[in-house]
């Protein structure tokens, strides 16, 4: 009996009979068609746009169809620091969010199991930021981290911050904002795996002479890998493409602009659509490559 209960929580039985795939087709059709129409085709038109060239006698923002490879070369030459910076910021935010979230998720998912009410209450608080607009939260931080704020003056008072230094408009603030905003995306998947973590494995490890630290390193971490992978991806991907935190109207400054800001500026201000499209394609490709390698190496390919 115990065994049966155990089996159902880990691997699930093989899917039911694979019957007539006509039903499958009917089930898939609307959604897939939808995605083709509103995801795939835009992506293709973005690809086409990325090769356009300025119209010969055109005004600002006017382009014609061409096969202009140069766009890619240009944007990389102009904006490679932003590309690097975006991934660096996203990486930093991901790592920070992971470090922040893991103990919290562990507490909610494992320690608090005995108190379901506390558990769900804490969970609510973790997802609470979702209910207050992402932008409002960020603006709140902008004020809370402004030069004359309690935070900055205190940091200066204890010499953790140089007297002429500041937080808003710097990479630190942007990374901070990214971290803060994506913490729920990190905590939730971690929580889901940790909540299902079978404590018997931990007991078995400590029975086999593993020091609590070894138990954590050798058993808890590997077993929560699916959550770690899901959480890091759900943080890293949107963070790399984010432009709100780094926006100069939010937490960013000129030296902390990310690729999202560049794409936005090219799309909306400079009206350089090919450049924006080329950057989008580059961003997406790099992310896909990173995700591919990461997921392969982490050995959790069952993302979807």
């Amino acid at each position, binding site marked *: 009996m115990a065994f049966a209960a155990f089996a159902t929580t880990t691997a699930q039985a093989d899917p039911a009979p694979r019957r007539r795939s006509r039903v499958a087709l009917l089930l898939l059709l609307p959604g897939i068609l939808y995605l083709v129409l509103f995801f795939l085709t835009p992506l293709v*038109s973005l690809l*086409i*746009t990325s090769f*356009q060239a300025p*119209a010969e006698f*055109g*005004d*600002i*923002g*006017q*382009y*014609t*169809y061409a096969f202009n490879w140069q766009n890619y070369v240009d944007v990389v030459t*102009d*904006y490679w*620091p*932003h590309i690097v910076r975006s991934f660096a910021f996203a990486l930093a935010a991901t790592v920070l969010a992971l470090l922040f979230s893991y103990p919290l998720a562990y507490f909610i998912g494992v320690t608090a199991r005995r108190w379901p009410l506390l558990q769900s209450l804490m969970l609510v608080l973790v997802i609470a930021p979702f209910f207050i607009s992402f932008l409002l939260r960020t603006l709140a931080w902008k*004020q809370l981290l*402004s*030069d*004359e*704020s309690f935070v900055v003056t205190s940091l200066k008072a204890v010499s953790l911050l140089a007297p*002429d*230094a*500041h937080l*808003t*408009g710097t990479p630190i603030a942007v990374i901070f904002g990214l971290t803060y905003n994506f913490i729920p995306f990190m905590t939730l998947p971690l929580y889901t795996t940790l909540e299902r973590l079978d404590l018997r494995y931990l007991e078995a490890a400590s029975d086999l002479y593993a020091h609590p630290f070894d138990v954590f390193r050798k058993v808890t971490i590997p077993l929560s890998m699916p959550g770690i992978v899901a959480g890091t991806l759900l943080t890293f991907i949107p963070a790399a493409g984010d432009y709100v935190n780094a926006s*100069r*109207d939010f937490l960013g*400054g*000129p*030296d*902390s*602009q990310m690729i999202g*800001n*560049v794409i936005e*500026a090219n*799309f*909306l*201000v*400079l*009206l*350089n*659509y090919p450049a924006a*499209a080329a950057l989008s394609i580059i961003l997406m490709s790099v992310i896909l490559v990173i995700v591919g390698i990461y997921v392969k190496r982490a050995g959790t390919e069952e993302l979807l």
Partner: protein
Amino acid sequence: STGGAAKPSAAADVSDSDKTIRWDNWALYIDVDDAGSYPTLEAFTAETGIKVAYTEAVDDNNTYYGKVKDQLALGKDIGADVACLTDWMVGRLIRFGYTQGLDHANIPNLSNLVPSLKDVDFDPGRSMSVPWQGGFAGIAWNKEKLPNGFTSVSELWDPSLKGRVGVLSEMRDTMGLIMLDQGVDISGKWGDSEFGAAIDEFKKQVANGQVRNIKGNAYKEDLVNEDTLAAIVWSGDIVQLNAENGDKWGFAVPEKGGTLWNDNFIVPIGSPRKKNVEKLINYYYEPEVAAEVAAYVNYITPVAGAKEAAMAIDPELANNQLIFPDDSTLAKAHVFRTLDGTEEQKYGADFQSILLGA
């Protein structure tokens, strides 16, 4: 991904049946009372029965344009029947056919437009645009922290202000002020080398962290929370901020000159309420109304006769150099010359690349 798309055509007018106007404008650009309502607008509604939804939707010409351009290109409604944008941007909109021709017959008060603004290169004969307010870009500073004040842009680059200086994302104002500081006549003939020199200076100040941030009208928030202590700003805003926050800031047009500009009413191509807008323009061209707005916003009114009307309200007002500049003040103010499409693209990109920190 617009090719040389065909110019859109204007929407059918429903003004006679639909007595509303949606007006997009900059922050700090209209009179407001303590309850948060707009006295002149309320009077307008009382007079004409037309209700006005006034939105401070414009923070920066470029971002505003970015937001509405696709709709404009399709000739669709952009969510506003009238918007007030700066000369050069109005020029672009007119070039692209994104604005509706104004029926001067519906705006008899247009005769009150000051003569110097009656004919502008981007809109000869004012067939598409009518000035709303004008102003200077100059320097503002936090008087509590920096009691000495500023007379030149170079003073902003003082190391003691590192990271506490703000500049505008409006290229023509920020670059204009720097070029003027470098001795360039921005209304005259200048080219890549002059612009390049100014860009280099600007780039240096951004790169070394002197400039804290580069913003549109949102710069005022930074001044208020004191992230910036001195900034390149728009004239009238400071007076309004002072009114709200207790005379905290000083303002000056630099000795070597500031920029002078106008923001203009335009009716976007997709708006079906041009006639209502024409009534609105006509209303604001009443000298008394213009004076009332000017008295509040402290920008230069383009309405002749407003000064006299202001006299009637408060004689001191008529001497306010921000509203009714005299020749000596105007001598320091310069209009940034009109750029052609190629220049606009190039200089815009140069400037933007600094905003992006590239």
